[in-house]
């Protein structure tokens, strides 16, 4: 069977077949026909690509900004919860807020304070 195949291959002369097929391909010149109004279509798409919708630009930018914002928020939350916990006794948040808001009043009330 194998010898039959090699005989067929020999009789077929693959080199010659390849040469003939290449010559056949050379005889066929592809058409250079351009579809009707093709250049108009290309230009329309190019212009559409050039001027993207303003709203979509904003939406894209805001979406891209969302992830870093969430990241920063999480970091600050973690810092305020755990970062200060290791500093000492748990602070009295209400007292601290009170002091901060009334800092100016407390300073005026104190007679020792000098500038």
């Amino acid at each position, binding site marked *: 069977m194998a010898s039959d195949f090699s005989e067929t291959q020999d009789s077929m002369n693959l080199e010659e077949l390849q040469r003939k097929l290449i010559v*056949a391909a050379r005889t066929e010149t592809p058409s250079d*026909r351009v579809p009707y109004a093709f250049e108009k279509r290309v230009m329309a798409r190019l212009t559409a690509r050039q001027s993207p919708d303003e709203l979509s630009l904003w939406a894209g930018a805001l979406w891209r900004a969302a992830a870093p914002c969430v990241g920063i928020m999480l970091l600050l939350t973690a810092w305020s919860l755990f970062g200060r916990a290791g500093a000492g006794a748990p602070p009295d948040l209400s007292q601290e807020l009170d002091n901060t808001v009334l800092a100016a009043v407390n300073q005026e009330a104190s007679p020792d304070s000098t500038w």
Partner: protein
Amino acid sequence: MEPIEAELIAAVLKGDAASFEPLVERYSPRVFATARRYARRESEVEDIVQEVWFKAFQKLKSFRGEAPFEHWLMRLAVRTCYDFLRGHQRNRETTFSELSEPESDWLERFVSQPETAQENAEAARLLVARLMEQLAPPARLVITLLEIEERSVKEISALTGWSVPLVKVRAFRARAEMRKLLAKLAKEKYL
């Protein structure tokens, strides 16, 4: 480069996109003819040519004007066709069992009396198109440019961006791949 062409390109680079249209109009026939060597369906051909023009528009800044615009564009066209072939290589057929009757007849004639099998026969053209579709993308590109379009190795190197030795190596491998396919064809057809 023609003076008017240089003016058009300069205008596009300054932001006048409309000046690009005459270039599209002038060179589309050549780009279409090139794309039709690599894609059979007309919709695919159109997609390739559109892609070539989009790339040309985007990369126009990189055109220095030292060589003709047409050469620069054809480099872009060949590379886009190559990308297309690589993107569609899964669609390659792997069998010769579906040869049409004229193709089979032409082969029979070639086996019995090689000299009577005419190279300009439609069946031979169909057969070679079928064969080309089964080649790997680099092999198909190099056979098309080197054997069918009869370009020099140096020209192919400039068109594809491959080095001269790489073109030679790929041409050698492409011919071997083609011969392997022909052997497969002989085996499927006659065993």
